[in-house]
């Protein structure tokens, strides 16, 4: 797996999370982010970000982490 896509995916996931932090409830926020990823991301993208989380997912924000874990 190369780095280009993963770098973008981390950035995208964090950005989606940052734009969905208005609920005040992390669980609900993570679910919104997860739903977004389910609805718009390709299979290979979801797979890569899930694999990244399994490896630690260091650069993912807390909500993005929770969301990816839901996938």
């Amino acid at each position, binding site marked *: *797996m*190369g*780095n*280009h*896509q993963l770098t*973008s995916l981390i950035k*995208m996931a964090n*950005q*989606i999370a*940052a*734009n969905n*932090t*208005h609920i005040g409830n992390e669980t609900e926020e993570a679910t919104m982010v997860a739903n*977004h990823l*389910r*609805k*718009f*991301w*390709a*299979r*290979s*993208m979801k797979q890569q970000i899930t694999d990244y989380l399994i490896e630690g997912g260091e650069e993912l924000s807390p909500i993005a982490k929770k969301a990816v874990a839901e996938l």
Partner: protein
Amino acid sequence: MLQYFDPDKDYGTPAQLSENMITLEINGVSITVPEGTSVLRAAAQADINIPKLCASDNLEAFGSCRVCAVEIEGRRGTPASCTTPVETGMKVTTQNKRLGKLRRNIMELYISDHPLDCLTCPANGNCELQDVVGAVGLREVRYGLEGSSVETRTHLDAEKDHSNPYFSFDPSKCIACSRCVRACGEVQGTFALTIDGRGFDSTIAPGQNQPFLDSECVSCGACVQACPTSTLMEKSVIEMGQPEHSIVTTCAYCGVGCQFKAEMKGAEVVRMVPYKDGQANHGHSCVKGRFAFGYATHEDRITKPMIRDSIDQPWQEVSWEEALSFAASKLKGLQQRYGRESIGGITSSRCTNEETYLVQKLIRAAFGNNNTDTCARVCHSPTGYGLKTTLGESAGTQTFDSVMYADAVMVIGANPTDAHPVFGSLLKKRLRQGAKLIVADPRRIDLVKSPHVETNHHLTLRPGSNVAFINAMTHVVITEGLEDKTFIANRCEESAYQAWREFISEERHSPENTESITGIPAEELRGAARLYAGAKNAAIYYGLGVTEHSQGSSMVMGIANLALATGNIGREGVGVNPLRGQNNVQGSCDMGSFPHELPGYQHVSDDQIRGRFESVWGVKLDNEPGLRIPNMFDAALDGTYKGMYVQGEDIAQSDPNTNHVQAALRSLECLIVQDIFLNETAKFAHVFLPGASFLEKDGTFTNAERRINRVRKVMPPLSGKQDWEVTQALSNSLGYEMNYNHPSEIMDEIAQLTPTFASVSYERLEEMGSIQWPCNDETPDGMPIMHVESFPIGKGHFAITEYVATEERSTRRFPLLLTTGRILSQYNVGAQTRRTENQVWHDEDVLELHPVDAEDRGLQDGDWVGITSRAGGTVMRAKLSDRMQPGVVYTTFHHPGSGANVVTTDNSDWATNCPEYKVTAVQAVKVSEPSEWQQRYNEFNNQQQGLLKQRRRNKAAARD
């Protein structure tokens, strides 16, 4: 009584909309027309055609020529019928001895100062002056001419002006009817023409008595169209003569969707004349659609398929069969080696609905994945997301004509007079009638102040602060109690509204608290919010200045929130109106170009919906979304995405971060480009399939008002195939059968599978002229204004739009903010307009910057300036302009060599990945030579042009 409307006939004065009907008698015939109609028009509607010269039905009556004089029982004299409104019981006589003599006398005076070279005149065969002279029976001219009894001065040797590339001005033919002057003002709204001098010395003068090209003239062609003689005449007509037949079709430039009569001689276009019955343009045009069509027959057109194994080899011209089987075997091989998801494609927002539908079908059904995307990714994808979330449909809510009912108009991040000029003219017309205007734009666009238009509030927001701005607007609406409580209670989701209301009422969103972010003085913003909320009808028009940001989708939702909160949805004069960039970008979205949506915005994961497609298409479809364009590039660089079919898009030039895009394109093993020219993307291609211009095909385009317009073939495709035929042949080569005989059959399939298109057919389009979707059993005639009674999602949804600052911000290293856009004379990547005379207005992209920023850098107008961002650098000429605010610079991306997108970054909208073209932190410095990128670009370009030329030499050798 005849009451049908013939769009080819000039009724003399504009139609009136009054519901009060007036009955009068003209020549003993009883005629009933709406109140306010002129006697001239009433007569014309009954096919009583009173001679006229200064009157035309797209202009207000002027009453200067007096040729249309009539007698009215009980009135003295002979009033001009154009300026006389009908009255109940009026008895009008349009022809008798006295009127005949009067008309002959008038025409005699006109002709005494008019050349009698009718046989060799360009207007011969289509001259209103000649027609009227014939109609009144003028037999002799006593004044002015050689041998006449009275000596008179004339204008016969007046000097011609050929400065405009598309039309000539010959004042010796002018009858000073003022139609051109009025068209420039009333229709176009530019006011570039005037009558200079008095009495006999009156002449038409552009600008300050300048040549046309040097004046403010925008070359829209309205004056040429209005001219009843050959005074203002298309150069193409002067060269070729009058056309012999015409076909109505739709312009392939911007999202306004103007209809034109392609006036033809054989298979050659003589001129494009805006079609009066075109429901988006009503007979008006801009310089692009009207004149810039010569690219279609430009020598750069490639008309034969070509292949090559790698991009450092010369192209080989081959037969269609060979090219298609080469492409098919490459794609199949890639899928065998790298998997089903290793290939994909891009549909074209310039091609027809039917062609776009076919490309996404090819990808989903023949490639077996959902790796399809389109140009909307980089322009209006946030509109799709934002409007679907809030209003339930991914499209604008109104007709263009609706603006004529607006009392306040807010234009956000759009520059209609340049990018959507025909709508811009309509908007200016409404503003001249008194509608109020708010402009939110970092630049002082023309709408801020132009003749007879001045904005009430110019909100000069900082690039990147859109969401903070729109939140502040709605904050004012809610906290000052300006919301429409009834609309909210009846039409919007209660719980979402309450949550949003709580959010937006927070003091941190106030104009005072956000002033440091937006740069908009709080009082100015409050004034604008009060104006918008207080107007009876307030409409929002927005463009890419809204969408092309890291929060593009949030901003679209913020705009929808504002419209919902003030009840400005669901009737004439209001609404949320995205001004869409390309001719068929609305259509390409509707047709299922996005990786997650089948045609009609139906999600691929819905088993029932997918099942319907599967049963009609006869294949199993993937239930997971595919890759978006930027993800395709990333995957290409990672080696998992290997092949791509690109129809009519130049991603190598139009997409951001050129270095990244070009590296991705280089890494593909099979790139198939279908285009009319060897565009920038094609320089990285292995298969080139020649495309057809809009003049060479049948189909439909859908404009920004959801209006489906017919595109009609006026000449045979130069390559022998229309684009849908090429896609069909590629599909067949891949082993997935397609057997359409005509685009109408493709539309029938679209209608079968897309609920919003269920009742659309070519027969209905012929009957109605155009249809605004949704068009189905519920709305068989389409739906001009949306959301009148309910939303497709039931109730309107207020979405919480938290402002999140972009990561792209000015720093010490990159202290300026670059925003990019387009200008009037060029279009998108310029592939079309650069191959026309439009080049005289803009033959290179320049960097516009404020004089203060220029002075800080020792830059003068015309200096070479190096622009660098964290993504890359390029060099352009500097143009000093106080249209810019200090700290913000601007350029266009119409010329490939200027490399505007080398500078733009990979930042994008959080929800849709629409690139953040409108905010790039840059530094600008004075330089003396082109950038390193430009030097590499020139080398690569020369190499690729050489490889194209070698193909030609090979062909010549083969013939020997």
